[in-house]
């Protein structure tokens, strides 16, 4: 029976090709538009590390200026820590892993004179970083925990840097000139681009990941070139490196991992106790305002999704609604135009149910075609977004889930759009349409 209905539907679509194409086109436009905005939205609100997003926590300690809060909302704490606090929190018990980090800048100076020096983004962090964030290694692995104290010169490279300077070979144990020193390669990581770059949101939410990773502890032994944001208050002289390290300047991100999500509460108490103890030393002049947020809370706190994207999702669904109203109008006109045929079928014994099924199949077919075309349109749209919009290069990809939802939206909306016209044709009294001719 379904096969028969399908044949009828195809035949009916062929009879009025322009109207059929128009209906399919309208649904495709509506679906395409809403899929583009929805894809961007879901990529932005996506969980960058689903396996661990509830046990990884960003740590905030409010050490800001007593005269003015960090934010207009005084319950918002600064996103970064001072060096002093980062060093102290590295020793605070509770977490199973912890990593202090900041963005640095280094020049790789190749041993071979044929290659040009390369300025790269560096992340200075602790060895736990790689375990905490599930960073995939091709060769070697993280450096050992004692290097987090000794600041031995080791480096973890990305696949790109390893290909450029070691031809893609296993370079673990080899050395590389970075700035004025030689570093031993501890490991090479595979492509790793969490979107958003949740562990450091200070320079954009879809920042490039760094090219090299080096021990955080290096900074206690001398000045390093820093990237990223630095926020200072008070009138301190921070021109000497040591003064800078001991200043109130905020420039370090700090993350912890717990065995269980609920260990957060105990840790927050430790953190508050630490802050109170620091107040005794004359630091931390602001009221207690510490936060420990898991990955999802952290992203929500930073409003990563962005209002523009949410607004566009809303407007694109209103556009879809206009397309559907339009499609309903066309379907209605078409179905009513077939009144005579339907009258004959009904008179020959077709039940209302049969007529209904026939037309719903036709509507479903239009919806499926609209969905496929809409998917193509949204792929085109996303391609344009990737090419034209700065910061979206890594962001938008259609995955299986989104493809399924595009087809789903198309079929469901076209069936909703087709229900009323279908119901209307089923109500036609057969006799009226047999009389006139």
């Amino acid at each position, binding site marked *: 029976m379904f096969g028969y209905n399908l044949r009828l539907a195809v035949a009916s679509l062929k009879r009025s090709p322009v109207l059929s194409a128009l209906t399919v086109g309208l649904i495709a436009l509506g679906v395409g538009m809403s899929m583009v905005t929805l894809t961007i939205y879901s990529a932005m609100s996506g969980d960058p590390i689903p396996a661990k997003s509830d046990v990884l926590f960003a740590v905030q300690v409010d050490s800001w200026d007593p005269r003015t809060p960090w934010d207009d909302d005084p319950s918002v704490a600064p996103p970064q820590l001072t060096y002093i606090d980062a060093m102290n929190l590295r020793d605070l018990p509770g977490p199973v892993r912890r990593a202090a980090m900041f963005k640095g800048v280094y020049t790789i100076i190749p041993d071979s004179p044929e290659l040009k020096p390369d300025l790269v983004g560096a992340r200075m962090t602790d060895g736990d970083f790689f375990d905490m964030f599930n960073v995939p290694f091709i060769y070697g692995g993280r450096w050992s925990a004692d290097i987090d104290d000794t600041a031995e010169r080791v480096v973890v490279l990305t696949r790109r840097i390893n290909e450029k300077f070691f031809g893609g070979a296993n370079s673990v144990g080899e050395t590389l000139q970075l700035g004025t020193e030689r570093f031993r390669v501890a490991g090479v990581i595979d492509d790793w681009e969490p979107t958003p770059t949740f562990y450091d949101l200070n320079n954009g939410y879809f920042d490039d990941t760094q090219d090299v990773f080096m021990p955080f502890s290096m900074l206690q032994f001398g000045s390093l070139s820093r990237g990223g944001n630095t926020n200072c208050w008070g009138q301190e002289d921070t021109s000497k490196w040591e003064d800078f390290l001991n200043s109130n300047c905020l420039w370090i991100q700090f993350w912890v991992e717990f065995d269980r999500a609920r260990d957060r509460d105990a840790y927050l108490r430790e953190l508050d106790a630490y802050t109170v103890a620091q107040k005794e030393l004359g630091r931390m002049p602001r009221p207690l305002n510490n936060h420990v947020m898991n990955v999802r809370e952290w992203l929500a706190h930073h409003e990563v999704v962005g209002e523009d994207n949410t607004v566009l999702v809303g407007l694109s669904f*209103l556009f879809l609604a206009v397309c559907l109203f339009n499609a309903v109008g066309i379907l209605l006109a078409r179905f009513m135009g077939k009144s005579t045929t339907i009258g004959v079928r009904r008179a020959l014994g077709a039940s209302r149910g049969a007529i209904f099924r026939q037309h719903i199949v036709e509507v479903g077919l239009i919806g499926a075609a609209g969905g496929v075309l809409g998917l193509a349109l949204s792929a085109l749209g996303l391609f344009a977004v990737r090419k034209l919009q700065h910061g979206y290069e890594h962001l938008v990809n259609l995955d299986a889930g989104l493809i399924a939802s595009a087809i789903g939206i198309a079929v469901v909306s076209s069936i909703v759009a087709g229900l009323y016209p279908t119901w209307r044709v089923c109500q036609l009294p057969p006799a009226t349409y047999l009389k006139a001719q």
Partner: protein
Amino acid sequence: MFRPILSAMSRNKTGATLVAMQIAIALAVIVNALFIVQQRNALIQRDTGMAVDEIIAVRSFGFAENYDQQGAVDDDLLMLRNMPGVVSADYSRSIPLSGSGSATSFRPDTSEDSESAQANYYFTTPDIVQTLGIELAAGRSFRPDEMIRVTDPDNPDYPKVAIATRAFLADLFPDATEYVGKTFYSGQNGVEVVGVIEQMHGSWVTWDELNNVVLMPLIDAGPVSGYLIRTEQGAAERLLPEVEEALGASNRTRLINFAQTMKDIADRSYSRDRGMIVALSIVIALLVIVTALGIVGLAAFNVRARTKQIGTRRAVGATRGDILQYFFAENWLLTTGGIVVGVVLTYVLNYYLATLYSLSRLDNLYVPVGIFIMWGLGFLAVLGPARRASLISPAVATRTV
């Protein structure tokens, strides 16, 4: 005259309602989208105070152990100024409009609790006024003898003079009318204002204090440094690769890690707003097309369904003009019905956008604009079908169907 039209419309209530709904939603979306587009446009069009189209910005990074920042800056500036097409060139550690820079609070005196004002600050060299094309409302730029050259990064001197924007000076000295000669403080360092910049944008285009800018004469110890280069009109794009190559070749102890025209830098800083404008413009254009299609479809359907009636009217004396007028009137009625609902929807949508997101309340002027767009759209869409209706021959009435 509307009564027969209404009774004719009531024969296809669903069709008319559907089109009216399309018009209503389209109006609501178009008015709000136009409003957002115009707001973003105004943001992008703000006066930067600078000759954005004629500036090239370069950043360099000295990596070698023997890198000499002061020597490099002198050599580079000399070379750049002698390049054909270059009007002037200055050192500047950071680049306006680029999204990266330095800001701090300055105070009108040395006390800790006086009212401070925040500003972007740039360490730069004396020709900067010409290079950026900024206008001095009073005073002068700094002189070469006022330059501070930092050679020992652990013991830097602080500049003694500055030029600053009127906006910043008005924040810092609210009661003053003359700013030249005033002194402001960064910590214990006093800085004398020697010139007032009429208007200039700083580094972060989304920052509230974007117009608060301070320029001070200093070349720091490196290893990061940067140059701003003013080119002859229309030459920035062409000179960019030449500048990058010349700088790269002249000194092997550093890398040129960034070279762009200021125009591109500004575009990139506003790319979110531009993206929003493009996206909303597409939505508006498609909505106009789809809504017009809906109106055309309904009118064409009506003309076809009423062929016999139209023929009869023509046979009993109605002119072509009467038929045209009838369909225009019917369409106007339909459009206006949609508009009435649409105006309500417009305000509902704007209310949601304004409460849930930080969008402003709608400027009421946009509503009549939207209404006229819809009326115009309705009229254009119905032209074709109405013309076809007017061409129906009176003879049709006499035929049996």
